C-alpha cells in the first residue's frame, strides 16, 4: 500500500513540515517507495536521482529546524529532462544528448535549489519536447497511470504521470503548443502554462523560442500556485523574461467567482471532438454558472488556422535552434572523412524521426523561395490569432474551452500519422501563439479517463486563471480522485 504521505498536497505537506509533524526525509522516503512500486509500470523518469534527493531532504530538515523553511523547502519535485541540471544528466529525451552534463543549472532549477526543494529525478519527455504522447522519447514511452495501455500525453508526459501517481508532489514541464496542459489533462492533474515572459527560460533546452514557456504541474490549483510563485520573475540571463512584479498567487485563491465573465468560444467545437468529452465540459460550464460566473459567447474566428500556423512557426524556429547539435561542442559525435560527413552522420543518427521531420519542415519553410509563402505568411496569421484574443478579452475576463478534443489515446494509435498526433493539440496551441497564460484543470471522466477544462487569460493575469480554476476545483470532487495504480501496486 502506498503511504498516505504521497497523497498529501504540497500545501498540506508544507504545513506539516513547518509544524515538524513530518520530516522532509520521511516525505522523500515515502515518494521513493512509491517510485519503486509504480515506476516499472509507468516509466515517468529518464533519470532518478535518489542520492541527490536525500542530501537535499537532509538539508531541508536542517533548514526547517532553524525555522528558515520557505514555500518549497523539503517538497519532492520532478524536473522535465529538458531543464539543465549540473548534478544529473540532461537528455531532452534525445540520443544526441546522451551523457550530456550541463555546466550550469536552469534558472528555475536554481530557484528551487535555493529553497532546498528535493529533486526526485528527470522526467521523461518527447525528444526535444516535440510530441503529444511521450512516445517520441529515445528512452521509451511513459504510460498513463489511469490506463497503462494509453499515453500520458506529451511532451511533458513524464512530469504529468509522476505527479498523478504520487512519485512526485510537484513537477516542472515546458509548453510550446500544449505540452504542459495536454498531459495534465490526460493524467487528471492541474497544469499551467504561464504568460510568455513570466518565467525565465535560461537553461531550458530550446525548441521554438517565440513559444516555449516553463510551467508547473500539481494535483491541486494551490500547489500549482505555490510552484509558480517560486519560478516566476525577471532574470537578467533571459532577456525575454519580463520585469514585472510577481503577485501573491495564493492570495488569488478566494473561491469567489461571482460576476466573473467567462468567454465561451464557438470555434472550439471541432470535427473529431469526442461527444462524451463535450458532455463533461458542458457540465463543468454549468457548475461555473452555479458558482455565479457569467458565460458569454465569444468568437475567435482564426482558431481553425492556429494549428497550421503553429506547424510552420514552431518547426522553423526548431530547425534554427537545433542547428547547434553539430557533434563539436557536446553530445553525440560520429566520425567522418570530412566535416560535412560528420554533420550528416551525427545528426542523421542522433535525432529521432519526429525531430528530423520538424527540422525538415522548418528548413523547407525558411528556405529561399518558400520563406514568404510559409514563414512570413504564418507570422501574419499569428497577428490575426492574437487580435482575436485581444478583442475577446475586451468583453470577458477569461476564456474556457476543452484542453483536448479526446481523452488519452492508446499507445501506438497515432504514431503512424503525424498529422493525427498534431491534432491532439488543436485547443492548446492558440494560447502559445498569442503568448497567453492558460491552465488545465480536471473536470470529470469520460470512458473512465480524465477530462480537462482549460482557462485562457489576459497576459500576466495568472491570478484570475488560478482563482477560477481553484473555485471550480473546490466545488467538484475531481482533485480528490486517484488512479487505482497509485494505491494498489
Amino acid at each position, binding site marked *: 500500500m502506498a503511504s498516505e504521505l504521497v497523497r498529501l498536497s504540497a500545501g498540506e505537506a508544507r504545513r506539516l513540515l513547518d509544524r515538524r509533524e513530518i520530516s522532509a526525509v520521511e516525505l522523500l522516503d515515502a515518494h521513493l517507495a512509491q517510485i519503486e512500486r509504480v515506476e516499472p509500470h509507468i516509466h515517468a523518469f529518464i533519470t532518478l536521482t535518489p542520492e541527490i534527493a536525500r542530501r537535499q531532504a537532509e538539508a531541508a530538515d536542517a533548514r526547517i529546524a532553524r525555522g528558515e523553511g520557505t514555500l518549497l523547502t523539503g517538497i519532492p519535485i520532478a524536473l522535465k529532462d529538458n531543464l539543465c541540471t549540473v548534478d544529473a544528466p540532461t537528455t531532452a529525451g534525445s540520443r544526441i544528448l546522451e551523457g*550530456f*552534463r550541463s*555546466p*550550469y543549472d536552469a534558472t528555475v532549477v536554481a530557484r528551487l535549489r535555493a529553497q532546498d526543494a528535493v529533486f526526485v529525478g528527470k522526467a521523461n519527455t518527447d525528444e526535444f519536447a516535440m510530441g503529444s504522447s511521450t512516445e517520441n522519447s529515445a528512452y521509451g514511452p511513459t504510460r498513463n497511470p489511469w490506463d497503462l495501455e494509453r499515453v500520458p500525453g506529451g511532451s511533458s508526459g513524464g512530469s504529468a504521470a509522476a505527479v498523478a501517481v504520487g512519485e512526485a508532489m510537484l513537477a516542472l514541464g515546458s509548453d510550446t503548443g500544449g505540452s504542459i496542459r495536454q498531459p495534465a489533462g490526460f493524467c487528471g492533474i492541474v497544469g499551467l502554462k504561464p*504568460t*510568455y*515572459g513570466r518565467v525565465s527560460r535560461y537553461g531550458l533546452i530550446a525548441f521554438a523560442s*517565440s513559444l516555449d514557456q516553463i510551467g508547473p504541474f500539481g494535483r491541486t490549483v494551490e500547489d500549482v500556485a505555490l510552484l509558480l510563485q517560486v519560478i516566476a520573475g525577471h532574470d537578467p540571463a533571459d*532577456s*525575454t523574461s*519580463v520585469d514585472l512584479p510577481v503577485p501573491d498567487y495564493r492570495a488569488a485563491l478566494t473561491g469567489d467567482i461571482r460576476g466573473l465573465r467567462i468567454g465561451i468560444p464557438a470555434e472550439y467545437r471541432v470535427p473529431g471532438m469526442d461527444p462524451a468529452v463535450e458532455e463533461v465540459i458542458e457540465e463543468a460550464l454549468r457548475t461555473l454558472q452555479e458558482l455565479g460566473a457569467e458565460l458569454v459567447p465569444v468568437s475567435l474566428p482564426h482558431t*481553425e*488556422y492556429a494549428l*497550421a*500556423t503553429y*506547424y*510552420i512557426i514552431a518547426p522553423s524556429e526548431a530547425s534554427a535552434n537545433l*542547428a547547434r547539435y553539430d*557533434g*563539436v*561542442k*557536446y*553530445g553525440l559525435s560520429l566520425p*567522418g572523412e*570530412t*566535416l*560535412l560527413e*560528420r*554533420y*550528416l*552522420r551525427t*545528426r*542523421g543518427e542522433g*535525432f529521432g*524521426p519526429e525531430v*528530423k*521531420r520538424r*527540422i*525538415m*519542415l522548418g*528548413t*523547407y519553410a525558411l*528556405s529561399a523561395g518558400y520563406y514568404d*509563402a*510559409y514563414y512570413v*505568411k*504564418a*507570422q*501574419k*496569421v*499569428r*497577428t*490575426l490569432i*492574437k487580435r482575436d484574443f485581444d478583442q475577446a478579452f475586451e468583453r470577458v475576463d477569461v476564456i474556457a474551452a476543452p484542453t483536448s478534443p479526446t481523452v488519452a489515446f492508446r499507445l501506438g494509435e497515432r504514431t503512424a500519422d*503525424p*498529422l493525427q498526433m*498534431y491534432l491532439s493539440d488543436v485547443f492548446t496551441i492558440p494560447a502559445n501563439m*498569442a*503568448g497567453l497564460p492558460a491552465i488545465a484543470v480536471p473536470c470529470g471522466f469520460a470512458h473512465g479517463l480524465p477530462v480537462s477544462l482549460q482557462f485562457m487569460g489576459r*497576459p500576466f493575469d495568472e491570478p484570475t486563471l488560478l482563482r477560477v480554476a481553484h473555485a471550480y476545483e473546490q466545488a467538484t470532487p475531481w482533485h480528490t480522485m486517484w488512479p487505482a495504480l497509485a494505491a494498489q501496486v
Partner: protein
Amino acid sequence: MRLSREIVDHVAMLARLGLSEEERERMREQLSSILEHVSRIQELDTEAIPPTAQVITLQNIWREDEVRPSLPVEAVLANAPESEDGFFRVHAVLEQS
C-alpha cells in the same frame, strides 16, 4: 501538394541531416501531407497585416559592458567530443590548396 524528391534531398542537405533512402521516401510522403494541411493559411488575405515575431513587444535589452566570470572552461569542455589546450577540436573546415 506533392514534394519532389529533389526538394527533399535539397532540404536534407541544407539541414545537414543524413537520411537513408527509406527515410527520404517516407519524409516525402509525410511532409507532403503536413504541407497540404498548413497551406490552408494561404486562403486568408493578410495583405495589410503586419507579421508577429514575438508577442510581448519587448524592446532591446541593454546592460553595462562589465567583465564578469564566464562558465568554467573545464566544465564546458568536459562535454566536448574532442578538445585540446582549452579549445574545442574541430575537423578542418578549409581544405589545403
